[in-house]
């Protein structure tokens, strides 16, 4: 076999291995979605959405309190993280060249990689430890801390996509910098930024570890944010490690609901981005 043929064969084999890698990664994805849909959909029923958990041994019950709990927790997280993250992103986009901005950018990226359980400990020390009680507020702050770096970076990136002509026009009309930013540039990027926030909310809605010792869990109906609160993720965890078949079924149903929420949020975000791109095209 000539040297040239051998090189061609090596090339083909390597290309085939790369294609194989894609297939290998798609197998677990397909398996996970398959099991979540088949096990989860069959366990879903009306009671799942309207009832609170029953004691061990009693069949039935649902996760109504956990569904509402998750919504409250991500609402608190958004309230805490969105203003901080957005204004920080605006500052980074406006004063992008300064040393301060690159330090903050670096810090945000590194914070984004801090394990969520560590952020949970931080929220525990900040909120739970001083008042000696698990609370939804602590959980919301833990999730918010995880959201901030994502909101910062998406805000900054989307603001940079705004055509410079808009800023120049506003400044030429005599607007101050803050006026140009808040009345012209931010509104132009707002749909994109909101999409980014949606993605960030979807990500923290799936977090379990930081909630284990902040919002803890609650088998009863509760909307008091100063008290422990149930969440879908912690409830799924509790049920999954229990020895009861009925609880396992409910865990699958909870996982199904979680995956559906996250998938629909991320698909909505993707469609919104595509529409934005089409609108911005000249």
């Amino acid at each position, binding site marked *: 076999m000539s040297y040239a043929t051998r090189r061609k064969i090596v090339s083909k084999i390597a290309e085939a291995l790369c294609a194989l890698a894609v297939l290998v990664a798609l197998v677990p994805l397909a398996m996970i979605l398959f099991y979540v849909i088949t096990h989860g959909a069959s366990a879903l029923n009306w009671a799942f959405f309207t009832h609170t958990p029953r004691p061990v041994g009693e069949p039935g019950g649902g996760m109504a309190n956990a569904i509402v709990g998750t919504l409250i927790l991500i609402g608190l997280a958004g309230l805490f993280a969105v203003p901080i993250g957005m204004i920080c992103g605006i500052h980074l986009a406006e004063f992008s060249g300064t040393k301060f901005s690159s330090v903050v950018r670096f810090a945000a990226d590194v914070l984004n990689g801090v394990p969520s359980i560590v952020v949970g400990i*931080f929220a525990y020390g900040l909120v739970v430890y001083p008042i000696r009680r698990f609370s939804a507020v602590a959980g919301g702050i833990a999730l918010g801390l995880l959201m901030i770096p994502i909101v910062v970076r998406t805000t900054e990136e989307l603001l*940079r996509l705004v055509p410079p002509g808009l800023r120049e026009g506003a400044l030429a009309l005599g607007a*101050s910098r803050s006026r140009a930013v808040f009345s012209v540039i931010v509104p132009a990027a707002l749909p994109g930024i909101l999409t980014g926030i949606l993605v960030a909310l979807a990500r923290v809605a799936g977090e379990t570890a930081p909630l284990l010792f902040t919002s803890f869990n609650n088998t009863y109906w509760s909307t008091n944010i100063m008290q422990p609160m149930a969440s879908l993720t912690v409830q799924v965890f509790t049920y999954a490690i229990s020895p009861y078949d009925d609880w*396992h079924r409910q865990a699958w149903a909870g996982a199904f609901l979680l*995956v559906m929420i996250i998938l629909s949020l991320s698909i909505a975000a993707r469609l919104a981005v595509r529409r934005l791109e089409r609108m911005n095209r000249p």
Partner: protein
Amino acid sequence: MRRSSDDRLFRIVTGIFPMLVLLIAVGIAFELSRQSMLSIRKFGFEFWTGRTWDPVAGVFGGLPFIWGTLYSSLLALILSTPIALGIAIFISELSPRFLRQPLGYLTELLAAIPSIVYGLWGVFVLTPIVRKLELFTPDWLKKVPLFSGPPLGVGMGTAAIILSIMVVPFTSSVAREILKNVPSAQREAAYALGATRWEAIKVAIGYGKTGIIGAIMLGLGRALGETMAVTMVIGNAPVISTSLFKPQYTMAAVIANEFTEAADELYLHALIEIGLLLFIITIFVNALSRLLIWSTQQRRTSVFALTAPEEEPVAA
């Protein structure tokens, strides 16, 4: 005049918020060290070399957890790196154009699935499969330390498999970004010299080598801190062993399992000290990974400084 003072006010007021971000980073380090003082004072360096974890006797040694975290992450990287790089190469260099976006979206979907769902799947689907494989392991193979131990299904091997699946999308999406940013002149030069397709790809990989190492380290950072899925399948036994079959424990898992059960201050402080070390390790790995990724992208912008606007790397 009014305008310039307006501008300065705007700069200072919005500048408070980036300060908050820095404050969070410092605050985590401060709070975690403050809350682990009892354990740091009592055990000192022995906390990191001790192998006994006995809450009842009040003796805490963290070595089994450190070992479990490092070993499981290393195994996960060995499994995930070839696959993640293969995906990145296929999507950016080989795939037909119409397949690029859907394939990119599908692999990134792996990152969107919550850890708890991986854990649930791991407990009820993957663990039984692994147990079957372990039961069919021939006896001569079981003499190798890597494959010794009881066929439980839960254990280091199962955890490493789940971790590797979870890490793939992070590494592959950054590696893809790096490959996309390699100037096409690099590949064209290779083709002009008579290179095959694979040889041209190797040139592109060589050009983005630093960034790709950064992408792998980003995956490592994720693997080190992953909690729920690992907690549910690793078996949670503080044992130091190279065996893939034996149940072991990780730093994140012990915090998740025992934090709310910690009855006395010392126990709690010992757990938080483990969290502190996990924080330091992941900060270090992530910072290094970011620097590597940024340095590749900076080089690209300097080559094309006249034609391309400066572009920031996409946050993964």
